[in-house]
């Protein structure tokens, strides 16, 4: 993939550059919002690793332009502020990562983006599955380790949104719209439905492995689902 690293810290770019090249990507870099936009216009960028704290702009203001250019965006935040992350994700960012991050974590997130882009459009897929989970969207059926699970319409709606972005964080707002058609609905409803989903899907609902909470931001389906053709 062509990856654009946007970070005002030269040392971060200096470190990530050789590592990502070694992993087979080609790298462009920018230290300011201005140079990020001009570099983006010049090269066919697939993924932007975007630091939010840029000297000349808030990084989340750039997300719209990157998404408009069909690039994926992983936000990298040093401030760890939930509001910043939610804003970035609601502006269209695909995922986020807190600084400092493990290299394995970053590589995994990049792989999810890479695969998602290769499939180009899981929105049209009829069946998505992983080792444990299988969702047939045409029949609206869910199987966990081969066994049918009965879900209420709301539970199914929430799972579908999580599944279509599997491996990536989904904001509360997106889940609220999917379940209640209202982004301002009480988050308590969302929490209760997620807990019911966990009861039905997790091996041990008290320590969830499948549906992870991203506190203050949303939820993430940890298993990456791939379409069956």
């Amino acid at each position, binding site marked *: 993939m062509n990856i654009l690293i946007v970070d005002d*810290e030269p*040392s971060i770019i200096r*470190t990530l550059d050789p590592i990502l090249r*070694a992993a087979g990507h080609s790298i462009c870099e920018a230290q300011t919002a201005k140079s990020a936009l001009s570099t983006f216009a010049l090269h066919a960028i697939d993924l932007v690793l975007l630091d939010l704290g840029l*000297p000349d702009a808030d990084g989340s203001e750039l997300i719209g332009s990157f998404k408009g250019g069909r690039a994926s965006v992983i936000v990298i935040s040093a401030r*760890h502020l939930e509001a910043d992350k939610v804003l970035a994700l609601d502006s269209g960012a695909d995922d986020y990562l807190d*600084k*400092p991050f*493990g290299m*394995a974590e970053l590589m995994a997130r990049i792989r999810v983006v890479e695969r998602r882009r290769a499939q180009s459009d899981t929105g049209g897929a009829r069946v998505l599955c992983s080792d444990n989970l299988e969702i047939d969207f045409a029949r609206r059926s869910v199987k966990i380790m081969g066994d049918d699970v009965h879900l209420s319409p709301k539970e199914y709606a929430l799972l579908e949104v999580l599944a279509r972005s599997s491996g990536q964080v989904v904001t509360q707002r997106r889940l609220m719209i999917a379940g209640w058609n209202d982004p301002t609905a009480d988050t308590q409803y969302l929490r209760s439905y997620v807990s019911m989903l966990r009861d039905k899907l997790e091996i041990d609902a008290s320590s969830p492995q499948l549906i992870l909470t991203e506190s203050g931001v949303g939820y993430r389906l940890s298993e990456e689902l791939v379409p069956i053709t």
Partner: protein
Amino acid sequence: MTRHFKSYAWDLGVFVTASFATYFAQMIDRPITAVLIYLSGVILIAVHSGLTNALIAAVAASLVYNFFLSQPEFEFGVTSLDEAVPLLAFNATALLTGVLVGKLKDTAIRERRANADASFLLTVSDRLQSALTVSDVEGMVRGLLPTQGVRSVKIFLARGDYYLRPSTGEIKSDRLDPLLEDLGTERNDRSVVLELSGARGALGIAKFAFTDDLDARPKLPDLQSITALLALAIERCLLLEQLAEKQILSRSEALKDSLLSSISHDLRTPITVIEAAAGALISEEISLADNERRNLLRTMIEQCRRLDRYTSELLDVGRIQAGIDRSTMQPVDLNDVVNLAIRQLQQFEPELTIERKVDRSPANVLGSAALLEQALFNVLHNAAKYCSGKPVELAMTKGPSSVSLAVSDRGPGIGTSEQSQVFERFYKSERSKQEGTGLGLFIAKGFTEACGGSILLESPIDGGIGTRVTLEFPLVEPTTSEVSMASA
């Protein structure tokens, strides 16, 4: 009291004089003159003392005239109709003129008093305008009130279930205390307590103690006006204080914000780099060339040093905030400080040229060598960041009682609007693409001031470019032990 006595004496004198003059006029058979003299006396008294005294004078004159002067003498009543007519006319005229003139006089007196009251309230209001804190208010009016028969005024503000006197900080835990404090003493009836009420309800009370002059006592409406002015001033001051508090709060919020972004950026960046580099080195799926592995390891060491630097900067800021003890400071030769700071800088900036203009004669200042070195290093390091690769000049100048170290660079300079901010914690120039914490000059200032010095920034210094930061310290004589050590 005495003023009133004098006034009565004057009226009595006029009356007696008029009575004798009337008597003499009567003696020489000038009855009309006699009556006119008496009338003039009554008018004079009316003009002087107002309605009440005029009426008393008119009745007295009528009685005296009737008793002593008109026939029959030494008894009341009249002998003939001829006698009765002048007496009636005299009585009526005396009463009428007395009443008219007296009323006029009363109105004039009332107006003068009202004018005096108004101008007094204006003075009070003017004076109160200049009060900035609640504790000022009481003192502002203290000097004015004695002219109004008030010995003292105490202001108590209601604070929950107790009263606070802001001017002294005195606290009355029982709300009745200010009311009862003079009870049982002779002063008890010589004070009035009024409530101070502001736009948002009761503020507290004002207690006025009167002077011993009973006649000079102010009227209640006057005191109420003064109390209203006091309440207004107190409320204004309270609002000012609240505003100031809010500003302090928002300033500390801004500081917290800059602390948060500084820590998240300056602490997490090196950790991120170290973790990413280490993660790549340990990963089996990433195969790096040998020189790249070495580069990553070098970067890790660099970032460890950066973390260490940042940690010591935060500790330095903590020392400055906690206050640096000056009692352990000793004479330090700035020449040594200059050498140490330059050696330290060369480790970070080996390429930088430093032009020294130092005469190397001893320049002792009272301080701590470590603090002075750090202050000078930070200033030099800052100059190195912004010098655009041109040499940095360090000049030491000795005056009769002080010595200055001036660090000048030939970089682009600092805008006037930024100059006041460069010494603030976490301030980073917008134009700066350099890594840095925004603490260097803050620490330089804190350490310089802790050593009794001052720091000054000028920009531009030459041809529209460059920045000069000057540290100035008072010179001291070295202690004898050091002199002997130096000579030994």
